[in-house]
């Protein structure tokens, strides 16, 4: 950086750049000297420094999120080849919670997020669809627009059907070619609509995300922001599965790694990776071969053109559904393989128009073909038997959803699989992706964190490992801090704890709270305080025991530890089996912070083992409800026990 004279107008920008670099940790020694010298000498620079630091924090934590979506659109207009970051990403919690979708925003650092929506009307959060939420007003506006657009399209579609598909295809093609301003009739309307849409940058909703399993995103900027999907939405999955259900009913399962763009209400562009599409017959309009060729031509030039047959476009081919279930795979060279599981598809190469007729095939069930580039353009060939075995690698069904847990009264839910934590119905950031390990935990002591172990409870079953090499625990204090208000758990005369835990030895703390309230305030919940294998609870240092030898403490056995408290009476369960009862104070007063794996602030009785999941309810669950939670945990962690799943939530 060349330093301008101190009285030059550009000096302010030079100074601001020093500060910006300083805050980004990107200031070299010379820059640091310059910054210190300026701050030492000039009071106005000190004021400016503080102002910039404070403003940066406000943008990071409060103001920026309000502009994220808007800026995205503006930016994509300016630089269409750039993938714009989206609104703060919202991650679906996973199918473990079944049909009750909970959307969780997973952000690095001290970043604000729009509020989450949760099905059971949380008391305080502003749902993302609310007019008061940062994105809600826009969503509502867009929804109304989408409804109006659908009405318009409905009317137009009648005209459309009556006028023959070719008209639209040809008209759209000519429109595309001429770049002109539309003719008469439907094609003109289509062109006008296209133009108007471009002007308004409004794209209709064409489907929604109907399932996600362990999604990780190759490009965080392309994380979905909400279940509804607009035309033009892109997804870049690093791993995991995501199912899209189009408004037509067609379903697509994206299989990471995969890059896919929802181009139209009836298809998309698969740039890389695999997908499986299932399209029921009758979901599209019949078209002639000629119209199909026209359509293909139009699509190859205008990927955003809406077509009625479900079509997957790739760098080298169009795969057009003829009522079927099929898989498509695109490799890094752009080569496209298509496998038909049921029904028929047409695969046609994208390239020289003259090659169209030679380069299209109708594939029937169990047939497959590959489109790949060679010197003469794009070549299409049937796959060999050995190559067809690859078809088995397609995921054709989303994993079955597990029972949802009851959400009423759920005060805190630590679920490490989808990396979420729910506190009072709101998502809260507590595990955020960052750094080579990809996980960062807010912990009691900075130098000794519990370790995130992606397979602590088996394959794809992560947990937090506590190794007792120092005073370490995990606190939700930071959660409160970022959410804006203290979030006391307010456990008083009823609560219900569940934890999936592995425990080594005795005197192991699962969770505790030291906050003193008007009544007994310190509580702890753990194993082996009253004797080997006991599951214990203390309120205000009064340890309450249970039957001994129920809790496995070999360090390797995963188990569900559960305590239900109602008006002074404690009931303890291990894997759903009663482990005794105890009587304590009729009411307790538990305020945050809560600590996992440690007893109190000073690090007593730390856990040696692992936690896979924790649920804390502010109510005492009925047996039906605890069976739902127990069955959910059992199914997820592959545990045995006495829980009897009910129909509720399942």
């Amino acid at each position: 950086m060349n330093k301008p004279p101190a009285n030059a107008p550009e000096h302010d920008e030079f100074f601001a750049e020093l500060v910006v670099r300083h805050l980004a940790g990107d200031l070299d020694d010379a820059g640091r000297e310059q910054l210190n010298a300026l701050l030492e000498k000039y009071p106005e620079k000190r004021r400016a420094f503080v102002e910039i630091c404070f403003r940066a924090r406000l943008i990071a934590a409060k103001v920026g999120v309000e502009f994220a979506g808007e800026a995205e659109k503006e930016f994509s207009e300016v630089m269409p080849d750039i993938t714009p970051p989206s609104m703060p990403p919202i991650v679906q919690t996973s199918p473990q919670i079944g049909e009750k979708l909970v959307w969780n925003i997973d952000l690095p650092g001290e970043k604000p997020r729009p509020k989450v929506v949760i099905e059971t009307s949380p008391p305080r959060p502003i749902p993302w669809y609310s007019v008061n939420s940062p994105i809600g007003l826009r969503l509502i506006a867009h929804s109304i627009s989408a409804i109006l657009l659908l009405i318009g399209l409905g009317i137009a579609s009648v005209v459309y059907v009556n006028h023959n598909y070719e008209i639209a295809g040809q008209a759209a093609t000519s429109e595309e070619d001429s770049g002109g301003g539309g003719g008469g009739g439907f094609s003109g309307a289509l062109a006008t609509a296209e133009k108007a849409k471009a002007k308004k940058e409004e794209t209709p909703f064409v489907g929604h995300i109907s399932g996600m399993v362990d999604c990780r995103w190759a490009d965080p900027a392309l994380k979905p922001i909400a279940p509804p999907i607009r035309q033009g939405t892109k997804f870049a999955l690093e791993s995991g599965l995501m199912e899209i259900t189009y408004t037509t009913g067609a379903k697509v399962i994206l299989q990471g790694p995969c890059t896919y763009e929802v181009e139209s209400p009836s298809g998309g562009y698969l740039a890389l990776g695999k997908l499986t599409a299932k399209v029921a017959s009758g979901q599209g309009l019949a078209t002639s071969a000629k119209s199909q060729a026209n359509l293909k031509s139009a699509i190859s030039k205008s990927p955003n053109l809406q077509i009625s047959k479900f079509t997957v476009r790739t760098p080298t081919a169009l795969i057009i559904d003829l009522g079927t279930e099929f898989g498509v795979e695109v490799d890094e060279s752009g080569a496209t393989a298509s496998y038909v599981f049921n029904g028929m598809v047409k695969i046609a190469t994208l390239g020289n128009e003259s090659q169209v007729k030679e380069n299209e095939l109708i594939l029937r069930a169990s047939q497959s073909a590959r489109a790949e580039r060679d010197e003469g353009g794009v070549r299409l060939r049937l796959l060999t038997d050995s190559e067809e075995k690859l078809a088995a690698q397609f995921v054709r069904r989303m994993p079955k959803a597990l029972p949802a847990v009851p959400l009423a009264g759920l005060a805190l839910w630590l679920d490490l699989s989808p990396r979420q934590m729910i506190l009072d119905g709101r998502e809260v950031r507590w595990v955020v992706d960052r750094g080579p390990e990809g996980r960062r935990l807010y912990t009691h002591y900075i130098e000794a964190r519990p370790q995130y172990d992606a397979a602590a409870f088996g394959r794809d079953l992560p947990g937090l490992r506590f190794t007792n090499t120092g005073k370490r625990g995990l606190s939700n204090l930071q959660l409160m801090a970022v959410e804006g208000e203290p979030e006391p758990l307010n456990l008083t005369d009823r609560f219900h704890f569940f934890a999936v835990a592995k425990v080594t030895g005795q005197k192991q703390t699962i969770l505790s709270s030291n906050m003193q309230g008007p009544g007994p305030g310190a509580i702890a919940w753990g194993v082996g305080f009253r004797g080997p294998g006991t599951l214990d609870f203390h309120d205000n240092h009064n340890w309450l025991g249970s039957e001994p030898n129920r809790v496995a403490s070999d360090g390797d056995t995963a188990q569900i530890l559960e305590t239900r408290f109602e008006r002074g009476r404690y009931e303890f369960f291990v894997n759903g089996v009663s482990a005794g009862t105890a009587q304590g104070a009729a009411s307790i007063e538990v305020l945050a912070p809560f600590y996992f794996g440690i007893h109190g602030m000073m690090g007593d009785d730390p856990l040696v083992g692992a936690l896979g999941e924790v649920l804390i309810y502010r109510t005492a669950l009925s047996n039906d409800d605890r069976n739902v939670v127990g069955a959910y945990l059992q199914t997820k962690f592959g545990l045995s026990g006495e829980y009897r799943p009910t129909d509720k939530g399942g």
Partner: protein
Amino acid sequence: MGLEPAKIVQELIAERDRLFSYIWAIVGDIHLAEDVFQEVSLLVVEKNPNVDDVSQLRVWFRRAARLKALEAVRRKKRGPLLNESVLDKLEECWSDYDAAPDSELNELLDMLRDCMRLLTPYSRRLLVMHYTHGLRSSEIARRLKLKVETVYQAIARAHRSLSECIKAKLAAKERADE
């Protein structure tokens, strides 16, 4: 009689933006600032500062934050980014923010919001990418096919524009209040 623990935690949370930016200014790393803020938060709960009023408590927060921030910088085996004397001199500016009532800070927030709207989409976008999405300048530069220096310069320009805009709004408000 000292402040109640619950009140102390509430104040800590109310102060978090000011305290966080203070820490961030010392450690020069937003992630490290999060850690330090966490440490300070825990220290507050552990020590339960024996102070009589909120203004004393804020001073306590600031001292604890400075101590922890400098410790964190040392742990990273880095020399202090800002000299002690500079930190001392900056205290006066930070204390201005401490003294500001919440209503003023809320007004400032609204002004910042308005001024963000007046930025060019490009500038606004850069700020959002850098601060809100936490993208490093090198990453922004890669995505936008720009030089890192260009990104920093653009963010600095955006800061300057925001600063001028907010100053203008403050001046207008003062005139209106008179």
